[in-house]
């Protein structure tokens, strides 16, 4: 079970969180034309990297904040965590 540092609450066990997928995906702006291809990429296509991955976790059983976690997908090492509005390096 991972031990995740919530920037709002501190170190908490994984079972307080829900996984939220790739944190680098940016939702296309509202009311803007977008091609089928680009929209499909946004909705369906995700990279599944081995190694460093910036991902979202939702502290559902804690502060209910969405946070960004930089994690190694093969070793589970967590390098850094960020608040939702914090700029990532």
């Amino acid at each position, binding site marked *: *079970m991972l031990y995740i540092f919530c920037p709002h609450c501190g170190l908490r066990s994984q079972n307080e969180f829900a996984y939220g997928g790739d944190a680098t995906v940016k939702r296309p702006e509202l009311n803007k034309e*977008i091609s089928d291809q680009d929209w*499909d990429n946004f909705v369906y296509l995700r990279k599944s990297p081995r190694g460093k991955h910036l991902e979202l976790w*939702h502290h559902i059983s804690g502060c209910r904040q969405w946070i960004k976690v930089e994690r190694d997908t093969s070793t589970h090492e967590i390098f850094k965590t960020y608040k939702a509005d914090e700029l990532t390096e």
Partner: protein
Amino acid sequence: MSQDFRLNNIGMVNRNKKISFIFNGKKYFGYEGDTIASALIANGVHLVGRSFKYHRPRGFFGVGVDEPYAILQLERNNERDPNIRATEQEIFEGLEVKSVNCWPSVNFDIGAINNFLKMFFPAGFYYKTFMWPPSFWYKIYEPFIRMAAGFGEASIKHDKERYEHKYEYCDLLITGSGPSGLASAYAAAKNGARVILAEDKPRYGGSLLTSDVNIGNQTGIEWSEKIITELKSMSNVIVKNRSQVFGYYDHNMLVMSERISDHLPKTQKYLPKQRLWYIRAKEVLISSGSIERPLVFGNNDTPGVMLSSAAKEYMKVYGVLVGKKPLIFTNNDSGYETAIEFKKNGVNPLILDTRKEPSSDIITEAKNLGIEIKFSYVVVAAKGYKKVKSADIAKISDNKKDLSNIENIECDCICVSGFWTPSIHLASQSGNKSEFNEKIDAFIPKKSKQKENTIGSANGKFTLEETINEAFDKGYEVSNKITENNNKVSIPTVVEKKSTQHDKFWCVPLPKGKSYKRFLDFQNDVAVTDIELALREGFRSIEHVKRYTTLGMATDQGKTSNLNGLQLVSDIENKVVPQVGHTTFRPPYTPVSIGAIVGREVGKHSKPTRKSPMHEWHEKNKAVFVDAGVWLRPRYYKQGNETLFEASKREAKNVRKNVGVCDVTTLGKIDVKGPDAAEFLNRVYTNAWLKLPVGKARYGVMLREDGIVMDDGTTTRISENHYHMTTTTAQAANVLSHLEYYLQLVWPELNVNVVSTTEQWAGAAIAGPNSRALLMKLFPNTDVSNEGLPFMGYKEADLFGIPSKIYRISFSGELAYEVNVESDYGNFMWEKIIEVGKEFQIQPYGTEALSTLRIEMGHVAGSELDGRTIPHDASLEGLVSKKKDFIGKRSLSRSAFTKPDREKIVGVVPLDKTTSIPEGSYIVKDPKAKLPNPKLGHVSASCWSVEYDNPFSLAIIKDGKNMIGQKLFAMSPLKNKTIPVEIVSSHYVDPEGKRVRG
């Protein structure tokens, strides 16, 4: 039976407490503190089971977790506990155990015929034999294998025992209370660290319990008792026995199973059987010790052949002799300790040492005691079927290839020692890549992967002095890192006997003309010939050899067999062990009961049960409840002998005719507040929200980004910047997460806050033509006329002094209102509605009637919004704005969602107007078409229409809007029914919606 093999003056069992237990239907006696193994051996019983493949007789091989043979089935209170190790299970009054994997009895086992057919059971037997034809698999092969294989029989009954989970945090977790565990725990605890010390056995001390050493001028046992007593008295230390740390997981989380009452007759009601500890440790010291390796020779699986360290522990801890004519077969000094212990207890052993002329303190001591020793000698084969009766022994040449002087000598046990294998499992689980140490011919941990260090004999340190020094240092070093304290305790002096180099030789060659089975894996019956065959057949990777031969794949995970298997492969391949590598260690280190893993999350406890504030009223009024997610909701209220069908029909009819009340507290409720709330809702819902006036509700549908409907519900504008959103019961939690996602990550610029208020409000839906008349009596000071409170209107009102909210919304299609009050007033509100409603013939209605009402009205719910439908499919396209953008809108123009023959919701009525259509039925054109019958869609929900008194269903079918009026068939292969049906509009009742607006 008397305890013929019990020694009088030695051991740690409680002689004042005699305990009786039953093994295979026969009563035996032992003492408090005995294991089943020690008690049976005391009674001279060595035959306890049959082996996995050949059903060969099985006795005891070890004395702890490494035991490969003595797997028994425990039965108590009519419950079965399969696969317990006799070497671990302590006896208690009334304990009942029996052998497994034998039929009809352990003494006469028909499966043993496999033993005589063993040429038919070579490596890969299962893969080679049970191949063709495929249909034979489930008819013949599988039942055969299942009958022949396996150990205990799992109980199919509900396990009434209690298992618990516990979360614990510490600075330092130490796994094992041998000399290294005790010393490091002591050093760290004295330096202020919060320590957990876990010991899998009932007694602390590990090897100190059985070794003849001195620490700080005390015997090993005295020293360990003193340390444990002091540790137990310290507030920063948790000491646990009968506790096995079996798994090392990510981020230094370890899991430990504590056997709390496995060793007790069940008397205390709330005492759990086992407790699973999830321990998050800042640092871990692995002091799990080492396990003695077997030597390999002919028939080395015969009962009576056992590890020499086990024989010693049976004497010193349990006061039990494993035999009265022991043969000690060793390649190192450890066997001598066992021999000396026999001698001290009046039994004359014979030592066979594979080494030529070793010399050390302990060998000298053995000689001085007059113990007979034969150097350069080996056991060729054990003789005897159910118990060792004698052994063929021989002199072995210096190159260890040739045997000479073969003779048969009488003995009743053979105690083997092939040196020691560090238990590196936990380190390996943490990700530590081990390395092969030539000095000890075994793997030891390498660089720490997580925050773990391995100490003592688990780290290949086999002298006590090294162990104690290393452990004190590590305990201090690790605790200093965490606490930054500098309290160093002094290291006691150690006195022990010096030993000399072990012999690398471990596998006795076969004499000419003999084909004895020489076993490597005692639980899975893997012999030397099996490994040889696998290699001849081309298997090279140790992982493949393991799977092909099943070496090390039994419940003991090869604790005693792995290394010998590796040695053999490297010998045959002319490689060295490190080149062969070893197979991966995975958790659990020892088997864990499923009950412990599940803990208290069983039955209703797997999730909390949520009840509305009116629950007690429902109970009193004969509600039959149904699970709605985690909520309990009344399904119907039973009158007399009514069935579900009759009751729900009565309740639904009464709503259509008079008035009904339904508990809708479980609906998800979310407060949406802030200056940008309207804009936010406008982006979340498919329809327009910017112009909704204060005091008005609106029905809305929200999508996922992929265009699929996520949820629906009404949202009411309470004040300028405050909206009250409702969601379905099932989606409440998901919708909140969804809203938070967009507010926190996608549109943080919106000034909006959301919070769940589901628990804060109790809700009652009042529906039916009499509902307004009832409301007028409930709220005499509030104008609830059609003008005063129109359809989709909202008002705050006073309910006999209680502030309440009235929403004029309807799910049933009737004139209807929802009244909300703060939860604490829920029951008051409900009772008032029932009381005042009497004159209007009010009846409560449950979820079954609720479904009937919404189905015949064609209102969609979870069974239509099932994660596959877009608004169009549910006939909700009128709510999809063409002007504004919203979540998921762009997906709706994808080609699959705009196809002209896209699925759509329709109504389905059986032609005979009597046969109900099973939910899930397929709608097809031709019931006799060739399979697979092309299906047009499926029936999503069925009811008995109370309006028309005939069955009615909703279905989602291809090109639905052009299907109205067609005669088709509903097929249910599950119920084996084919029903001719007519497709009608989904709005079966009041299609113009006059009633809700009336």
